[in-house]
């Protein structure tokens, strides 16, 4: 068994967990896709199939005390931060046992006690929140960092720029992770951003920006770990740009006229899960048999979550007016 070039604290067992988690993310979103197509879940949804490595890799190097903010495409971040798929699926089914008692749905899954400050229906809405979370850590001298996930499209919002500047001038322990999946809905990053790498936007705010292959979970871990160490040492924020691709359409209905099937194929060949599997097999950390077991376990967890969700109760009408104020 070889030791991979990963952060020190990542054991080989942890690597297997991460691998399984990537499958859990994929199976979960594929299941959700199926249910939406069948009309079994209402509302809308945004799937992160193909983007598993950035969520899994980044969250692998933080601890339970650390926090994240997420996006509309947030199921993966949620799972990577330790959410149970039971409560996630129940939320999508609008049940009382869901993370938000069925009041939030796909775009608002959160688990504040566990450090997941929530998905967000507002593009870039979570970025200033992450800065606020880092401000609390700073003011109360708490030793946690905040990982802030957002997309390429979000970096064109004023909130992104204001938040980065604040984090910089206050020197806060926050790690900005831009998952550049090449499109903000139909807007190609090539048309909507004039710099080659979004990571360079950090330069205007005076802190480092790093580009990383977002489909390489090992690289994701290393780059995030470095940024987390910097943040913990009081050296301020980092902007990480993870280059990746969403395999599915933007949301429930998307004819994908703004991109080619060719391009989709090229990116699918760079599948982060497949590549990680090869790395693990090659390093003898995982055998083919073990791999299959992990995959099956992940699949079963998702199947079980559906049962859990279906057997959970719907909220009563009285729930409409609860939780409005603390």
């Amino acid at each position, binding site marked *: 068994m070889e030791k991979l070039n990963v952060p020190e604290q990542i054991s080989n067992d942890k690597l297997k967990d991460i691998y399984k988690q990537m499958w859990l993310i994929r199976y979960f979103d594929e299941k959700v896709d199926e249910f939406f197509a069948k009309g079994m879940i209402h509302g809308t949804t945004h799937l992160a199939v193909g983007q598993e490595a950035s969520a899994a890799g980044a969250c692998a190097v933080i601890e339970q005390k650390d926090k994240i903010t997420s996006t509309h495409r947030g199921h993966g971040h949620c799972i990577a931060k330790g959410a149970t798929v039971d409560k996630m699926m129940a939320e999508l089914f*609008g049940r009382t046992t869901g993370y938000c008692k069925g009041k939030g749905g796909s775009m608002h899954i959160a688990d504040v006690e566990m450090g997941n400050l929530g998905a967000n229906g507002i593009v870039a809405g979570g970025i200033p929140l992450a800065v606020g979370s880092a401000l609390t850590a700073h003011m109360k001298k708490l030793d946690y960092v905040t990982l802030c996930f957002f997309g390429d499209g979000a970096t064109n*919002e004023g909130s992104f720029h204001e938040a980065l500047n604040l984090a910089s001038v206050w020197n806060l322990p926050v790690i900005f992770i831009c998952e550049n999946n090449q499109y903000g*809905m139909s*807007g190609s990053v090539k048309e909507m951003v004039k710099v080659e790498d979004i990571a360079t936007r950090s330069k205007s705010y005076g802190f480092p920006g790093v580009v990383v292959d977002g489909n390489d979970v090992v690289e994701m871990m290393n780059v995030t770990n470095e940024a987390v160490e910097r943040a913990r040492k009081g050296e301020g924020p980092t902007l990480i740009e993870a280059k990746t691709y969403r395999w599915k359409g933007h949301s429930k209905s998307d004819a994908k006229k703004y991109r080619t099937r060719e391009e989709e194929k090229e990116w699918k060949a760079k599948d982060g899960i497949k590549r990680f599997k090869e790395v693990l097999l090659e390093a003898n950390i995982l055998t083919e048999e073990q791999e299959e077991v992990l995959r099956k376990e992940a699949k079963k967890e998702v199947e079980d979550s559906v049962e859990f969700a279906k057997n959970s109760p719907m909220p009563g*009408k009285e729930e*409409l007016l609860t939780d409005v104020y603390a």
Partner: protein
Amino acid sequence: MREITYLEAVREAMSQEMRKNDDVFILGEDIGVYGGAFGVTRGMIEEFGPERVRNTPISESGIAGAAVGSALTGMRPILELQFSDFITIALDQIANQAAKVRYMYGGKGKVPMVLRTPSGSGTGAAAQHSQSLEAWVAHVPGLKVVQPSTAYDVKGLLKAAMDDDNPVIFYEHKLLYKSKSDVPEEQYSIPLGQADVKREGTDTTIVATAIMVQRALEAADELEKEGISVEVIDPRTLVPLDEETIIKSVSKTGRLVVVHEAVKRGGYGGEIASMIAESAAFDYLDAPIKRLGGAESPIPYNPELEKAHVPQVPDIVKAVKETLNRK
């Protein structure tokens, strides 16, 4: 006449105007080949090209301000905001700039722009994609506010909005996009500030906006079976408000139910109710005015809770009966 959908009527109104007037252009997120989040601009970039159908970055404050600035300097922009909830991000440019520029500059300059945006719940999109915030903008002098409820109205009102030399906030309702009515092919204009009596009646007046117009008409059908005659008025524009039509109707029926989807507290219904209380119609009132609106909570995701948030046909039926002291 042919029937088309509300969505097609919006597109037709814009396209006809853009063919005539080079100063009119549209900007917004995903309005290019994607055709807009709800498909309203589908086919328009193919006809008018990317200069006049400007697919923008995700930057609501920036694009709203660019619309205001271009309007001030001679263009006539139509800004599409993907969901009306996102007006929160554009609001500085709308409320502090667009609405006030002309007045602050002592009557110099004008801002002829239309901000079109879909509002309302009923799609399961939850708290940040389902709001009806029209009262926020109706509160700001300098803005006009339109809420069409039929395909016929939306085409004529949009024409009037595009012709207007002031910033107009134009609310389209998501659940109405597929609704159909007879719509003339040629351009026509429905003046801003002219209510429409959607149904005549004698016992109670319902003033309803947007999707609630349909629900009020359904309620009226049901009530008719019980011998209750309801008049349904759609103000169509909140600013300017056609007070006269409402006052006349309430003076006739002596009873008023106001219904909108927006949260009741602070909603525009309060404005209509107090307008009546201050008017000559007050003397004719035979029962307290009833107001129906959204619940005092964010819009929940669960479909049953979402429905419970917003007035439904039975709620309207019940409110009308209450004005008549009937069960």
